[in-house]
């Protein structure tokens, strides 16, 4: 089967090109909403006093939740909420189908309610297998106050041609 996309030098030149930054908010309400969404009953995600008694600064974000991108109808996707922003890679990918291929999160600190994170994203890898193009983007989340990296998340999407 002919491949539907070619990883050219032009594509590879876009690896690491950083997007403009976007603010992700982590609030007590958003942490509780996410925890409810996954069916967790762990009080560390709901009870601020309990979380503090365990040494955390507030309730702890469940694993996989890195905050909610600040939303404005003019700048964010209405279905998924992600920001449509400047910078980053621009690829002419096949569009017959789109699947979620995988998620990986590396943590350098806990994420807790009250945190405000600043995220930038860049293209990390493009692989082609037949009519499928695997595109991996890496987001880097920094604490807005300290500038410290708290998490990196790699998201792989599968574009079908």
């Amino acid at each position, binding site marked *: 089967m002919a491949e539907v996309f070619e990883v050219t030098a032009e594509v590879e030149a876009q690896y690491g090109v950083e997007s403009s930054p976007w603010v992700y908010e982590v609030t007590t309400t*958003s942490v509780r*909403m*996410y*925890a*409810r*969404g*996954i*069916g*967790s009953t*762990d*009080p*560390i995600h709901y009870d601020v006093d309990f979380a503090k008694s*365990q*040494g*955390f600064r507030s309730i702890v974000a*469940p*694993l*996989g*939740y890195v905050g*909610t*991108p600040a*939303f404005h109808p003019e700048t964010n996707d*209405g*279905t*998924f*909420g992600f920001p449509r922003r400047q910078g980053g890679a621009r690829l002419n990918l096949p569009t017959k189908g789109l*699947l*979620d*291929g*995988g*998620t*990986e*999160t*590396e*943590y350098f600190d*806990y994420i807790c309610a009250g945190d405000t994170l600043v995220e930038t994203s860049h293209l990390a890898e493009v692989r082609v297998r037949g009519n499928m193009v695997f595109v991996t983007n890496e987001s880097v989340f920094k604490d807005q106050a300290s500038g410290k990296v708290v998490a990196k998340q*790699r998201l*792989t999407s599968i574009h079908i041609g």
Partner: protein
Amino acid sequence: MAEQTYFEDVKEGQELPEIKIKPDKQQLVKFAAGSGDFNPLHFDEKFPMLKGMGIEDNIVHGRFKYAQVGRIVFAFAGYKGRVKKFGVSYRGMDLINTNVTVKGVVTAKRREGGENLVELDVWTENDEGKKTTPGTAVVALPSKG
């Protein structure tokens, strides 16, 4: 709240306590609200794309299953441990109102850079025993010492 696991007590091959769930539409709507992913694939069984895929019911979010894997990893780490990394691949679809079992096993343990690291294989499994969301995790555990 799980009891704290200590590095000295962990053995290779040790299985993590599993979670069995059967996500229904209400659960997926709650997840849509919490995650911000309002793709109709997950709550509208008449969404045209489903028919095109030959499916007559809603698909469980991949990120929902990722979060379920996160639940058992977080519980294994305990409040005194620290999850360093965890990732999965979405290899198979799960439909709403079907059983999903979340499992994990210790594959290695080592001391490195002053940390007590434990490596895990983690996954979700359907009723046929197929691993629909396989992955790995690395957790730093406290020491009794």
